[in-house]
């Protein structure tokens, strides 16, 4: 049968500019560029191009441009090109379609329908250059009350505080496992986190020895596969996160194919080389909130109550009661991962169709915890599709304490969101274990860029606070009165807890 499958992109090369240096062949990990030495002719396999743009930016004469393929199926509003391509792929392979990065369907963004307030006349705004502006955030359980003891002239805190993470800015690097991304990417984020005074997550692939110097800025993860979970690993990190679910694939497990379990990955995950690393959908020791509580306390016992324990879930329909259960089960923070969250590999059907927007999830979890009078028992960390300081500010105004950024951090490291992470061939040295490709990311440069992103966003956050007339990020938390909705329906406004613009 004829394979009538038009390519997504076409590679255009300016023949006059091309000097036949062959660089594009070496740069493209997907095998698009080919040169027949005998016939002295170029061949471009357009159908393999993923528009990572690596070749275009490495070509010394800038001869290459990558364009969207003009060849498409006859337009149809329902049977879109993508729908037709998916059906043909599955007809050919009989398999589940795998993809990467976040949800690609054009769902509306609530962040883009929320606007922030600003001070005018009656309450003056604050200039962050003139006055101190506090972004410091503590993640973890807060005491019911604070008791102070005065002895002679010194003051002492009598209340025993639960362990908290101290963040200089309410932005952390999300959990992305070593295995799905390279050690260079991990190192970049670890260094940036330490430098800026925040944290990064290991993901479920363990902590590579090269990260040990940054361990006090690293949150370890305990996922259903329990890879690398080991007494020393738990004691080494700054906090522990139990991953129940993730926004890109709620309700399903995952697996790292055996061919990606290299010697180093095997050492870090503590599994045999070359075998599939399977994370079952649920933790098989957790079938209830009571079971979850047991694991939370088992981890606290194993680390002698020195580390906060977080629990991460995907934002799903009943997220509020689930999050309340998690906090009541003893978690020091609940991490909610919205349906736009990125991933290194997920079945397309799950990535695009499960879960709810993070904005709605933050608002309902925060409200429910307040209604039950236990908001101070644990922090809310939001993640999944946070793209800018404005998103951070809006997430916090909706009720989050802090956010995790994953995709945004990778973009800072050079990712172009080509969505091919699961192939392990990342052209920018991020989602790969290939020693040659990995050289493309210099961890020092990566650290500088990742730290810059945090600094830039932090600076903007201070400016936003200033415009709102606030001098600390705490005063913005759950301060939904400083948000207004634009073009949102009544039920949506009710869920978000914000008024319509003009009211």
């Amino acid at each position: 049968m004829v394979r009538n499958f038009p390519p997504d992109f076409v590679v255009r090369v300016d023949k006059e500019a091309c000097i036949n240096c062959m660089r594009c062949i070496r740069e493209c990990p997907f095998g698009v560029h080919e040169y027949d030495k005998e016939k002295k002719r170029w061949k471009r396999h357009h159908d393999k191009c993923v528009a990572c743009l690596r070749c275009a930016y490495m070509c010394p004469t800038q001869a290459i441009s990558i364009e969207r393929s003009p060849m498409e199926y006859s337009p149809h509003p329902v049977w879109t090109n993508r729908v037709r391509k998916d059906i043909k792929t599955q007809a050919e392979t009989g398999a589940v379609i795998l993809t990467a990065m976040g949800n690609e369907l054009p769902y509306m963004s609530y962040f883009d329908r929320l606007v922030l307030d600003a001070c005018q006349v009656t309450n003056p705004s604050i200039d962050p250059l003139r006055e101190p502006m506090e972004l410091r955030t503590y993640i973890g359980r807060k005491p019911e009350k604070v008791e102070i003891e005065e002895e002679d002239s010194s003051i002492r805190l009598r209340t025993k505080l639960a362990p908290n993470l101290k963040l200089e800015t309410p932005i952390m690097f999300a959990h992305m496992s070593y295995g799905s991304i390279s050690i260079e990417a991990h190192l970049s984020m670890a260094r940036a986190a330490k430098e800026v005074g925040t944290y990064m997550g290991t993901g479920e692939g363990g902590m590579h020895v090269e990260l040990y110097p940054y361990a006090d800025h690293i949150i370890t993860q305990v996922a259903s596969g329990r890879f690398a979970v080991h007494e020393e690993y738990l004691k080494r990190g700054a906090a522990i996160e139990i991953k129940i679910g993730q926004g890109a694939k709620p309700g399903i497990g995952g697996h790292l194919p055996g061919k990606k379990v290299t010697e180093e990955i095997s050492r870090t995950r503590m599994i045999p080389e070359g075998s599939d690393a399977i994370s079952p959908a649920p933790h098989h020791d957790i079938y209830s909130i009571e079971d979850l509580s047991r694991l939370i306390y088992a981890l606290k016992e194993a680390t002698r109550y020195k580390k906060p324990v977080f629990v991460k879930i995907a934002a799903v329909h009943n997220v509020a009661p689930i999050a309340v259960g998690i906090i009541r089960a003893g978690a020091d923070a609940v991490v909610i991962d919205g349906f736009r969250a990125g991933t290194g590999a997920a079945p397309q059907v799950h990535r695009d169709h499960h879960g709810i927007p993070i904005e709605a999830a933050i608002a309902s979890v925060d409200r429910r915890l307040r209604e039950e009078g236990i908001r101070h028992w644990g922090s809310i960390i939001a993640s999944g599709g946070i793209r800018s300081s404005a998103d951070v500010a809006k997430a916090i105004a909706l009720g989050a304490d802090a956010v995790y950024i994953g995709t945004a951090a990778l973009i800072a490291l050079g990712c172009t969101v080509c969505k091919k992470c699961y192939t392990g061939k990342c052209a920018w040295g991020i989602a790969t274990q290939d020693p040659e490709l990995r050289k493309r990311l210099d961890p020092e440069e990566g650290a500088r860029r990742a730290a810059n992103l945090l600094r830039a966003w932090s600076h903007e956050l201070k400016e936003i606070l200033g415009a709102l007339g606030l001098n600390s990020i705490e005063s913005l938390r759950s301060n939904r009165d400083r948000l207004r909705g634009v073009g949102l329906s009544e039920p949506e406004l009710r869920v978000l807890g914000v008024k319509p613009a003009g009211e």
Partner: protein
Amino acid sequence: MEIPLRKARVSREDEFVVIDAKGVHYRELNELINELVERGERKLRLLNVNGQRYIADGLRCSDCYIEIHGVAGDDLAAFANGPTIVVYGDVQDGAGNTMNAGRIIVHGNGTDIIGHSMRGGEIFVRGHVGYRVGIHMKEYREQVPVLVVGGTAGDFLGEYMAGGRIVILGLERLETYPEIAGEWLATGIHGGAIYLRDEVDEDKLGYGAKTERLSHSDRRFLSEAVGKFCSCFSLNAEEVLNAEFTKVVPKSHRPFAEMYSDSKEG
């Protein structure tokens, strides 16, 4: 040595520090164990244990010996790294959960998820065990965990097993369910092996599992593991080994290899 005196009654008997756990909250009991180990104590005897959870969790100590008299609560020795624990009584859910190294010897029965995700060490349970035992057991280099059960096991034994060895001897049977192991045996297994001292119907096996004939090295392993087990409980190893065993192994180490495709690579 000074022993911190709190609610728990602590005394010394020969080289053992004896803790009376009656009415003591698990948090205090476990902190006491940690402190004693930190002060160099290596032999502890816990009396009147009545379901206290998390005993010896995350304990790193390869020469520690902890005797438990009574019923050890959930997650005994979870994440533990090295200690030997002998329980004169039953253990509850999750004994040896994600354990890295050490030994747990149980003279009574065990409930669910015993040895869940364990990566190293040994667990010997003289009696029966419950559901989901040995789920996602794994191995890593020279660390090959071994779980031996004298009685029978419930459903989902060795599900998602990625490594290690489970031996179910079936020396005693339940009246209500006389089979050596329950349904969904070894579903999703992709590493390691399960040995059952009985015949096993193929239709009991879960997705991805198959039976295999025992090799010489299997016999060698069995005589070593069963030998150790029997010496813990004063059983005659020769008699126990003189029986047919069924070995359950994965069909593939990459069970999901063909499941995915890429719309680009088609």
